[in-house]
């Protein structure tokens, strides 16, 4: 196979580098070359990028493996956010303050419950609703869309629409760290750190374990995987379940900082779709790198849109970036040229 200019992996990384430099330079310009302003963009960008990754990773693996675009992925994020938030607060629907008096421990309980419920609901969706529709991709798409609506309406019904605000967790919400003379809440660092750990952890899972090899092979050719004696449907279910659990986990750790609002799920879903397409459908590296680039670009444009008083600029940034990438490289950054 011939390697055209933007064909190989080296070119993909080169393009990534160009984009990163461009975004960072633009960030420097919009912060008027004041490093503390630049730091705000950087930290906020990485923070958003990591949360994006938590939604996009499941979306991407599921799409690569099963050709299903799970429109409900954002709803799983919301379920996680509301559950974790609710369990931590005394005023919640599920009041566990008597059983667990310490709010910090309640946060941990909330995160664990969010992961478990996200996994369970993901399993239900894949095993009982999607599996009967394996030969009907369009039906699956509509179904995940419908499930997403049901889940969001369910959340609205249980918790009403009042946006929840941020909360303290182990004192790291109030604690500060400093970058380029600018103070930030430690909670941002916590989320960024968790994101980085997950990027590495999932990469190791995919590279080093048998399950990972099977998943990567399944992304290429699920039929051949089954012809080797592997029950590929079980792998589908497992990956789908894990993907939903990770999204719910993302919501749970985002909630103390972003609060839990019903529109957050849709926003993250749209941005994640931009991420996985510009990263290259089915590519894990593409999803990880794409999340970071989109996060940084978002933060930069948020700042810029305030300066020029055109707020919509920030909203459309992920899609603009997507269009730009697809113009240069139609298969996305790390996607296979077909």
């Amino acid at each position, binding site marked *: 196979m011939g390697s055209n200019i933007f064909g190989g992996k080296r070119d993909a990384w080169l393009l990534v580098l160009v984009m990163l430099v461009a975004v960072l330079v633009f960030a420097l310009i919009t912060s008027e070359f004041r490093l503390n302003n630049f730091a705000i963009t950087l930290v906020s960008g990485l923070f958003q990028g990591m949360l994006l990754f938590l939604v996009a990773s499941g979306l991407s693996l599921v799409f690569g493996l099963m050709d299903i675009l799970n429109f409900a992925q954002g709803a799983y994020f919301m379920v996680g956010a509301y559950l974790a938030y609710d369990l931590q607060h005394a005023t919640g629907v599920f009041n566990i303050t008597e059983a667990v008096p310490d709010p910090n421990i309640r946060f941990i309980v909330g995160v664990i419950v969010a992961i478990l419920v996200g996994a369970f609901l993901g399993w239900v969706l894949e095993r009982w609703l999607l599996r009967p529709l394996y030969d009907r991709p369009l039906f699956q798409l509509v179904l995940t869309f419908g499930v997403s609506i049901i889940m969001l309406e369910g959340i609205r019904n249980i918790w009403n629409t009042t946006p929840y605000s941020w909360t303290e967790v182990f004192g790291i919400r109030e604690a500060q760290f400093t970058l380029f003379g600018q103070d930030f809440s430690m909670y941002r660092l916590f989320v960024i750190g968790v994101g980085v750990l997950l990027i590495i952890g999932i990469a190791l899972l995919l590279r080093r374990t*048998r399950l990972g*090899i*099977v998943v*990567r*092979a399944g*992304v*290429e*050719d699920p*039929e*051949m*995987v*089954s*012809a*080797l*004696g*592997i*029950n*590929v449907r079980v792998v589908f279910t497992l990956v789908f379940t894990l993907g939903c659990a990770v999204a719910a986990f993302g919501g749970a750790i985002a909630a103390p900082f972003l609060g839990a609002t019903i529109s957050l799920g849709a926003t993250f879903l749209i941005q994640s779709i931009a991420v996985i397409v510009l990263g290259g459908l089915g590519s894990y590296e593409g999803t990880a790198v794409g999340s970071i680039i989109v996060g940084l670009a978002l933060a930069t444009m948020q700042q810029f849109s305030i300066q020029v008083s055109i707020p919509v600029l920030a909203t459309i940034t992920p899609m603009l970036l997507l269009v730009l990438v697809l113009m240069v490289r139609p298969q996305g950054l790390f996607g296979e040229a077909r």
Partner: protein
Amino acid sequence: MTTNTDKLLDVRDIHTFIGQFHILEGVSVSVPRGAITVLLGRNGAGKTTTLRSIMGLNQVTQGDITYMNDSLVGKSAHKIAQMGIGYVPEHRAIFKELSVRENLQIAARQKGDLENNLDFVFELFPDLKRLIDLPGGNLSGGQQQMLAIARALVPDNSLLLIDEPSEGLAPIIIQELISAIRTLAANKTVLLVEQNFRVATLLADYFVIIDDGHSVASGNMSDLHKEHELVQRYLGVA
């Protein structure tokens, strides 16, 4: 004639649909244990579909397939593979993003499969040894074909289904493959699809001719060259 009592695989009058198309309309193939049987027939005759039907990748709607006294019809592909059937598909279906090592690892069904059979695999295809860390997609066509066969040798399969191994390969590589398949057939049963009549003659003990979704003739490969009319009519080779 051999007494065909010792059949490892017996395909009896199967019908297979792909979508609404009736592709196989009565194919029977018996595969004697320990021998190489070749499916012959023109392009589009239904050879690949026959292998896929055996493997459970296409749904059989009529007829029966027995393997070691078990029916395969209605079983899913992974169950059929676990019964000891290795599939080397048309166009190889190597995992391009996986390394050669990972392509072999994924085929292991039990602990020790890879360790036990790797020596034999390298003996058969020494090239794979130095390519072990390369992505499958970087291999040449011939090397990919070797890897595809090697992959089917990692678990302890009794039956190998090999679809057009010589397709698109240079004569010298084909020669290598012929001797490899001969060697591995010493303790495996093979059902082969091969368009290259010379290669088929060199390898096979028995043949089955498929034409337009029907099996139309079968017998000993050594007798086929005498059947001028048969060969002319169904295979178009003189």
